């Protein structure tokens, strides 16, 4: 059972280019584009919603995929995005002062 929370890193730059999400890392200015699944994860990563809930409500609703497998893939993806400084992950809700 995953109890991960994910939040968009406020230091990255991001823009949807007609459906393609462009992300520039705040760590080293590396540019990334996110695929559809990663874009859904990025957009839903508010720091307050558990990853498991994001997978159930957003990813499983969009793709025909078994929930357990989807969650494992989402965790791997979240950790990968976190390694590039795009997402932050925590086992506690991620709350920022002044966050909207």
């Amino acid at each position: 059972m995953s109890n991960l929370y994910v939040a968009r890193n406020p230091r990255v730059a991001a823009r949807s280019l007609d459906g393609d999400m462009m992300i520039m890392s705040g760590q080293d200015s590396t540019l990334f584009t996110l695929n559809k699944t990663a874009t859904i994860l990025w957009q839903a990563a508010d720091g307050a919603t558990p990853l498991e809930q994001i997978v159930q409500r957003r990813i499983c609703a969009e793709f025909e995929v078994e929930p357990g497998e989807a969650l494992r893939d989402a965790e791997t993806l979240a950790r990968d995005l976190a390694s590039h400084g795009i997402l932050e992950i925590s086992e506690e809700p991620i709350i920022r002062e002044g966050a909207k």
Partner: protein
Amino acid sequence: MSNLLVEMTEKALARNIPLSVQLDLTYRCNERCVHCYLDHDDHGEMTTAEIKHLLDEMANAGVFILTLSGGEIFLRKDFFEILEYARLERQFCVKLKTNAIMIREREAARIRDIGVESIQISVYSHRPEMHDAITLVPGSLKRSLQAARFLRSQGLRVIIANVLMVQNLQDYPGVRALAEEMGVECTLDPTITPMMDGDRSVLKLGVNQDALRQVFRDQALVGDVDEFCAVAAPADDNALAALPCSAGHTTCYVSPYGDVFPCVQFPLPTGNVRTQRFLDIWRHSDRMNEVRSIRMKDLPTCSSCSHVGNCTRCPGLAFMEGNMRGPSSQDCEKSFARTGIPSANMLAKKSSPANLVQIQIGPMQPPIPMSGAIA
């Protein structure tokens, strides 16, 4: 440019998205650089609320890279409020252009916390007596370099921009050495931009043909000199179908007064965001669409020039010479300095007297003041 950025730029081009915008926050400045083409008086800058509204519109239009420049951006009391909004609320990739003399440790730390892609700082010489003689502000080099060190110590990417002029021609190796010692990047630009009222007297500060030739043969600058100075292959259909540059295609410029232009160096007014939506100007301005329609094959002189395949021709400088489809003489000089082969424009001028034309600003605005920052 990274492959991914090339790919995204191509997508933006295909979808008519303004991927990159330079927004000048003010034309006021605390330096008085001898080559600057700006009117430094404030003729009614956009308010904080107007700028935030514009940032909302630009984000919705798909703008990703936002360059904040001026004038001196730190003269705006709301600068950090604007920067925070752009970065943290609208998630732009922000680049700053500044002389940096108002940046101390506290400001550097705040910029790091907000997160910017880069900070470009104008440095004209490694020698205070030369730099300060160009900015006309005693002590300005010391303060700019101190700021650059504060910014570097915060892990930020700093780029020293060195404009090459008659006065500081001999100093660029010193500036490059200084940049290397500081661990920052360095760019060199020999382009001097005319004043926006058409006054071209400032161009006398530009380096001459002999000096350009020497600079273009400096291996430390250009790498493989033979390759850099090679004559372009004859233009094929692809080269003639190419866009003259990104101005009006994936980039544009907005002045502190809300005027929108194809580029900071292309003073063709296309609309004003105080009375029109940014995206409407971008998509529907007749002038923007005219700029957009031009291909290399449409340039009467340049399309037949031997340099057309690798010329750095700036459509904005051509416009300031009187014709956006005409040659840009400064770029003709650069091509000649590189290759020793005169451009079609230079050959044509030899056979007819020079005809300097003062630029005509359209009916939308009086003469347009523009940014002092030169890329």
